[in-house]
């Protein structure tokens, strides 16, 4: 039986604001526990929330970038449930008149563009964080409410994703869009971007299955893909045995590499939404929409096009460099300092992408755009060869020192002095009379071997063009 997965995502993204969504407490990661809290976000009686304009604008911008229909009139609602990280016993969210509906995200799969439908985009508040006590066997939990009330954007996709590759492309695409919108810094390790998955299996062409498994507790894109692989295998096996997977919510156990069913009590999902009486409606009129559209930042495809048309990059390079906004920003910052886009792109694609990943962002690198620009500048001016640059680079990555400094310290400056190279050339010819004879007899390839020998003698520091020229002249007896 040939089965295909039916996959959808719920993505939560913390918005990049200075303050929380309904109070003036700092929106920051890593501060001492319970210090960015006030009566509003602690849920004290009688306090009133007031909506953060910036948070709303970032949410609106993202919804527009996702091609959503924007509600002219949007409201907030209370989602009621009990949990220690939720001080008010309800979360302020949007249920009845959400900000954006019926949008889409374009993803690219094997050179083909596909649209993944966005069911809705809405603004809500984050909950606090439960911390497990360090005492072994402790039968209690600790709560830090610094995160309670941080603005959170929820992006709910349609179940339009049909493969692991598409799921991966969707996650990358959404992350990139949020970064281009400057809406979120998307750091999964800090929890500012969180994925939840829903998945079922069907025969291609069949209607949507009447069950689905929701998977939570996915801490990284890698975990999402592993959980996906696991569920595809598990559900396929059940269906092949003629059994139907249960409709359930499961937690991903990364260490065990499997999903675990959550025990759920009857009625636990009954959130009893009702309109939030403490927040008035937000009306978005034509003028506001036009302004929001005009202020939409340059998005990935636009930037990619500009890199090709204005900077002369090959399409392939432009696409890779613009996949993440921090990387594109890094590249452009270096190009502004040294105008050789292709060479800088080559360095980023060969040397930097190797160390960059989910955990390491361009901002974390010790090699700053100014360092890379200087390095390429030194190659272009002939101060060092590409080979020496490659020798210097690991040191730059490690220490964050300027290339000039490392080159000077290690005595790696390129030998571009004719007199210094003439003696090397003479030596090489004397030591390899046969090779020299081959070249004179018309075997051009022999020259390469002599260049290699000379490079060895100078520890790679000879200027290759100059060396070539000198060898040729000397062999021809000029």
């Amino acid at each position: 039986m040939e089965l295909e997965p039916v996959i959808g995502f719920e993505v939560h993204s913390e918005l990049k604001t200075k303050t929380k969504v309904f109070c003036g407490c700092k929106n920051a990661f890593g501060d001492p526990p319970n210090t960015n809290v006030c009566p509003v976000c602690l849920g004290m009686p009688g306090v009133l929330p007031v909506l953060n304009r910036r948070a709303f604008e970032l949410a609106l911008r993202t919804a527009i970038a996702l091609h959503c229909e924007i509600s002219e009139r949007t409201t907030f609602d209370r989602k009621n449930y009990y949990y220690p990280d939720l001080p008010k016993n309800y979360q302020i969210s949007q249920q009845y008149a959400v900000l954006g509906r019926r949008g889409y995200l374009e993803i690219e799969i094997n050179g083909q563009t596909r649209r993944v439908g966005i069911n809705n985009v809405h603004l809500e508040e984050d909950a606090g964080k439960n911390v497990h006590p360090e005492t072994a066997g402790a039968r209690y939990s600790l709560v830090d409410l610094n995160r309670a009330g941080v603005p959170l954007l929820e992006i709910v996709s349609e179940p339009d994703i049909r493969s692991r590759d598409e799921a991966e492309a969707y996650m990358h695409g959404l992350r990139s869009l949020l970064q281009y919108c400057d809406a979120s810094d998307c750091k999964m390790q800090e929890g500012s971007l969180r994925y939840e998955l829903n998945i079922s299996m069907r025969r291609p062409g069949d209607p949507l299955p009447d069950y689905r498994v929701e998977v939570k507790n996915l801490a990284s894109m890698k975990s999402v893909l592993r959980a996906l692989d696991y569920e595809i295998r598990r559900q396929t096996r059940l269906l092949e045995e003629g059994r139907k997977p249960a409709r359930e919510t499961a937690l991903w156990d990364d260490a065990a590499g499997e999903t675990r069913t959550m025990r759920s009590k009857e009625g636990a999902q009954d959130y009893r939404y009702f309109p939030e009486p403490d927040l008035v409606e937000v009306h978005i009129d034509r003028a506001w929409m036009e302004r929001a559209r005009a202020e939409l930042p340059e998005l990935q495809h636009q930037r990619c096009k500009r890199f090709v048309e204005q900077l002369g990059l090959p399409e392939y390079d432009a696409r890779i460099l613009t996949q993440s906004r921090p990387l594109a920003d890094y590249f452009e910052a270096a190009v502004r300092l040294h105008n050789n886009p292709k060479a800088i792109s080559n360095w980023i694609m060969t040397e930097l992408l190797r160390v960059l990943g989910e955990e390491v962002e361009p901002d974390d690198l010790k090699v700053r755009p100014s360092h890379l620009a200087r390095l390429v500048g030194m190659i272009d001016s002939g101060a060092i060869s590409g080979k020496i640059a490659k020798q210097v680079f690991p040191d730059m990555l490690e220490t964050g020192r300027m290339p000039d400094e490392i080159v000077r310290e290690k005595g790696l400056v390129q030998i571009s002095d004719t007199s210094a190279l003439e003696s090397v050339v003479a030596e090489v010819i004397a030591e390899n009379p046969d090779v020299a004879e081959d070249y004179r007899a018309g075997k051009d390839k022999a020259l390469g071997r002599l260049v290699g020998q000379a490079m060895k003698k100078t520890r790679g520091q000879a200027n290759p063009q100059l060396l070539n020229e000198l060898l040729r002249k000397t062999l021809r007896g000029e």
Partner: protein
Amino acid sequence: MPSEKVTEADVRHVAYLSRLEFNADEIQRFTHDLNNILLYVDKLAELDTSAVEPTSHSLKMQNVFRDDEVRASLTNEQALANAPEREGPFFKVPQIIQEP
């Protein structure tokens, strides 16, 4: 007398959702009271509201915002002052078995 809208099972369910505990007498009393309240609301439903926009709010007001500017928070001591239990800078709560 119209048939009951709220059953005892409904009351028990709502009580569970609200984390409230009632004895059998109370369940009976609340079932009766809630039915009376709903009967009263039915009276309002006799009004023709087909031409009225749904409202979520009684205030004729919209687009109330604050600027994204940091204001002073409480100190950690103030934040924890009313906590029934604490440990270091944290609120201390009964063990959490599973995520919501």
